[in-house]
């Protein structure tokens, strides 16, 4: 009951606080530069120049507070020791370069970076093309899209069952092991197999992201002029050639946006690894490494250094993605 009251109170304060802010700040501005008297014209001009900033101030303030400040502080922390007090110069960066787990994380992240966007976009494209051609396509689409609604941790729990392993002799309950044993193979503890286990984790993210890619690409495919496809039919192209030589090249822009959007997501991949392996058996990734050092290793300096590496990797892709998306929209 008390919580409910406070939640309501916060909402009311928040909304009225905003109204009050805009009302008062504009009132004060109009007091300082009244739109009457001998200098009315000059005052109006000045007030008009200041007014936009009044409206933008809250957003700018929050962005500074929650984006700019953390970046600056992270940079500062990356030059300091485990408790964030002692200045150690480039010590954290030196550690980073020699750390095995970091090298492993970088390598795994690169793998994720290639496999997941490629896999999701490819399967999304195929799904989009196929579902557009069948009667129950919309139903199939909603099935494929469904995993998007599941949280990463939830998805990991589901897939834990797929990859589940029971000791030899016991009944296998994992789907993958069921298939393997059906064909006469020996059951495996899949997520502990170094190198390959990363791919089993990637499959989860591909499973989730294919729906996203499919929806966007399906819209793009529908935007292709029907006449160019008919022209290709008359030119003798078979369905494969029409798809790869006529349709896909016409939606390259959209494919690039989908690809980079998933890439950014992949660079931050964390939940799946944490829930499935927690970075053991050679499956560590950067985001989980950062989390480990922050909350388990209790070294805020090293955690900040890893965080900065992630940011550096994401930024160029983000810039490119936003530019591309903007161009697509025009």
């Amino acid at each position, binding site marked *: 009951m008390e919580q409910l009251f406070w939640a309501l109170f916060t909402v009311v304060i928040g909304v009225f606080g905003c109204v009050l802010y805009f009302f008062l700040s504009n009132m004060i501005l109009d007091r300082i530069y009244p739109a009457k008297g001998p200098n009315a014209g000059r005052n109006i001009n000045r007030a008009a120049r200041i007014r936009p900033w009044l409206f933008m101030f809250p957003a700018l303030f929050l962005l500074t507070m929650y984006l700019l400040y953390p970046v600056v502080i992270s940079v500062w922390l990356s030059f300091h020791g485990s408790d964030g007090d002692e200045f150690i110069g480039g010590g954290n960066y030196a550690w980073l370069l020699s750390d095995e787990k970091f090298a492993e994380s970088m390598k795994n992240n690169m793998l994720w970076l290639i496999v997941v966007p490629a896999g999701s976009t490819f399967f999304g494209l195929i799904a989009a093309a196929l579902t557009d051609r069948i009667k129950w396509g919309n139903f199939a689409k909603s099935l494929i899209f469904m995993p998007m609604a599941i949280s990463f941790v939830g998805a990991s729990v589901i897939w834990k069952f797929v990859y589940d392993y029971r000791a030899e002799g016991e009944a296998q309950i994992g789907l993958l092991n069921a298939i393997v044993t059906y064909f006469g193979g020996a059951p495996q503890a899949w997520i502990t197999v170094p190198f390959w286990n990363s791919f089993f984790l990637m499959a989860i993210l591909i499973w989730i992201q294919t729906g996203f890619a499919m929806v966007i690409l399906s819209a793009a495919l529908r935007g292709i*002029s029907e*006449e*160019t496809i*008919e*022209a*290709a*039919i*008359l*030119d*003798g*192209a078979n369905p494969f*050639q029409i798809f790869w*030589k*006529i349709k896909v*090249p*016409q939606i*390259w822009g959209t494919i690039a946006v989908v690809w980079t959007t998933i890439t950014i997501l992949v660079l931050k991949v964390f939940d799946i690894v944490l829930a499935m392996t927690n970075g053991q058996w050679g499956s560590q990734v950067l985001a989980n490494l950062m989390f480990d050092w922050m909350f388990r290793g209790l070294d805020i300096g090293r955690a900040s250094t890893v965080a900065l590496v992630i940011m550096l990797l994401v930024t160029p892709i983000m810039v490119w993605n936003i530019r591309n998306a903007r161009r697509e929209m025009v």
Partner: protein
Amino acid sequence: MANLKLTNVAKAYGDVTVLKDINLEINEGELVVFVGPSGCGKSTLLRMIAGLERITDGTLAIDDVKMNDVPPAQRGIAMVFQSYALYPHMTVRDNMAFALNIAKMPKAEIEKAVNDAAAKLQLTEYLDRLPKALSGGQRQRVAIGRAIVRDPKIYLFDEPLSNLDAALRVATRIEIAQLKEAMPESTMVYVTHDQVEAMTLASRIVVLANKGIAQVGTPLELYEKPENEFVAQFIGSPAMNLIAGEVIETGAETVVALEGGGVARSKVPTVASDLGTHVNIGVRPEDLVVTDGTPLYQAKVEITEALGEVTLLYFEKGTRSEAVIAKLPGIHATAKGETVSLTAPAEKVHIFADGQSLLYR
């Protein structure tokens, strides 16, 4: 290079029949134009020839080979689309070469075919551009070039000029006419709703209406001897005037007493049994002349449109559903409300009974 034959062709979407009983023979070297009002199925017919629409019933034969189930690319046809349908991601060269590449033709031959077509269409300097860097007229020429390189037996044009502005349309129309002249053996089928395009380009026109063919003939045949009221009114602008009446004299020259008191004489022959038949006479606005004698039509002028070379007179409708229009040569000063008496030479007066011309019985 090829002839095309449609036998009892029909098209239906579910229970809805769009075309039926289409019988048509197109000979090698002809440029046949399909015209008709919107929704008459002219584009559908063309797409059936192309193979983009299934033929519900009847036979389509090219060079006496049944083509109903032959894939579009193997019918020996090439089509120019209304929206050009250029592949936006390919250069002009690649657009034109696409079909040949698909057919795995040797590179050197492709090169030559593309260069020849480009030269013919003045596209040589644009070969490495993308379609978006071309003007509408140039895009249209690329679309035609894409058809030419395939050296098809039959060219199909689906309203190719309707996306161009008026001036360019005239220029491109002439280019198509010249193209046809340069390839005298090629067979072309051309769909348009513009009767000027039809009249100027066609060796024969096929008028489509009411799910079927209303008349097939040369442009002047359609103009001078329309088979029915639909064709009579569809060809020519303004449309032919139709006036109801009753046959009062038969023979080599027929006399019809018209509603409104006029009398029309026509060279359309009739027989004795036609006496008393209710008919419509048809007379084109440009065939009407002012007269002092017995008028064919007499009414008050509602609107006068002086265009300089001709003057259009729109008469008061009275009980008619459409105004009678006269197109008089030169400048003809007429005040609103003035009564004008008109007649027409007997050889220019058509007679229709139940919508069909008596000339074709």
